[in-house]
C-alpha cells in the first residue's frame, strides 16, 4: 500500500492545493480523466466543509491510500464536529441556497463515503475504485 499525508492550514485559499495533490496522485495511480474529476470535486467538497464548518482548527489533514484497485481519501479535522444522524435528507434543488449539497455530491461521485464525527473532530472517508 502507498500512503500520502498532507497537512495544510485551514484556509480557503489552500483548498486548491489539496485538490491538486489528490488529482496528481490519482493520475499517477492510473484513474481515467472522468474519475480524476470526480475525485477532484469530492476532495474539494470535503475540504470546503473543514474550512466552512471547522473554523476552530488551525490546520487539517488529507491522507490518501492506494491499495489494489482502490484509492481511499481521508479528510480529518479537529473541529467541533456535528451530528451525522441529524443531517437533513437530500435537498430539493429549487430550494438550494448554497448549503447542504457537499456531502451529497461526495456520496454521488465516490464509490463509498463514511463520516465519523465527535466533538473532537470530523473524519470523512471516501473510496474510489479504478
Amino acid at each position, binding site marked *: 500500500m502507498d500512503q500520502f499525508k498532507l497537512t495544510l492550514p485551514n484556509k*480557503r485559499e489552500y483548498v486548491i492545493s489539496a485538490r491538486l495533490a489528490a488529482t496528481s496522485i490519482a493520475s499517477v495511480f492510473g484513474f481515467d480523466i472522468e474519475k480524476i*474529476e470526480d475525485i477532484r*470535486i469530492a476532495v*474539494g*467538497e470535503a475540504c470546503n466543509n473543514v474550512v466552512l464548518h471547522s473554523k476552530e482548527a488551525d490546520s487539517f489533514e488529507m491522507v490518501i491510500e492506494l491499495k489494489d484497485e482502490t484509492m481511499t481519501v481521508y479528510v480529518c479535522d479537529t473541529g467541533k464536529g456535528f451530528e451525522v444522524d441529524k443531517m437533513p435528507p437530500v435537498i430539493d*434543488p429549487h430550494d*438550494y441556497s*448554497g*448549503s447542504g449539497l457537499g456531502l451529497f*455530491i461526495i456520496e454521488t461521485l465516490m464509490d463509498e463515503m463514511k463520516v465519523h464525527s465527535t466533538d473532537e473532530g470530523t473524519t470523512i472517508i471516501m473510496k474510489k475504485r479504478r
Partner: protein
Amino acid sequence: MALKIRHLYSERSERWEVKLMGELDIDSSTALKERLSEILEEKTADVIVNAEDLEYIDSTGLGMLIGVIKQLKTNGKELIIVNPQDSVSKLFRITGLDKVFTLREE
C-alpha cells in the same frame, strides 16, 4: 489566482457577457460574486456566462451563482451558462441544479 474573469457589456444583445477561466471554488467565488454585483449595479441585464474554459466548479460556486440568479429574477433578468465542460455539467446534473440553471450549448 485560480479564476480569471473577463466581462463586457454587449450593446447589440443588451446583456453582460462574462467569461470564466480556471476554477470557481470556495476561494474564487467571492471574487466572482463581487464582480457580478459591480456590473449588475452598473446595468441590470441578462448575464451570459461563457463556461468553456471553466475547469472546475463546486457547491460553493453553485450556491453563489444561485444567489445571483435569485437576485436577477426579482428584476425579470436571467443568467445563462453557455458551453460548460463535461465535468462541470456533470455537477449540475447530479445535483439536479440543471433544472434551476439555464445551460446552453452554442
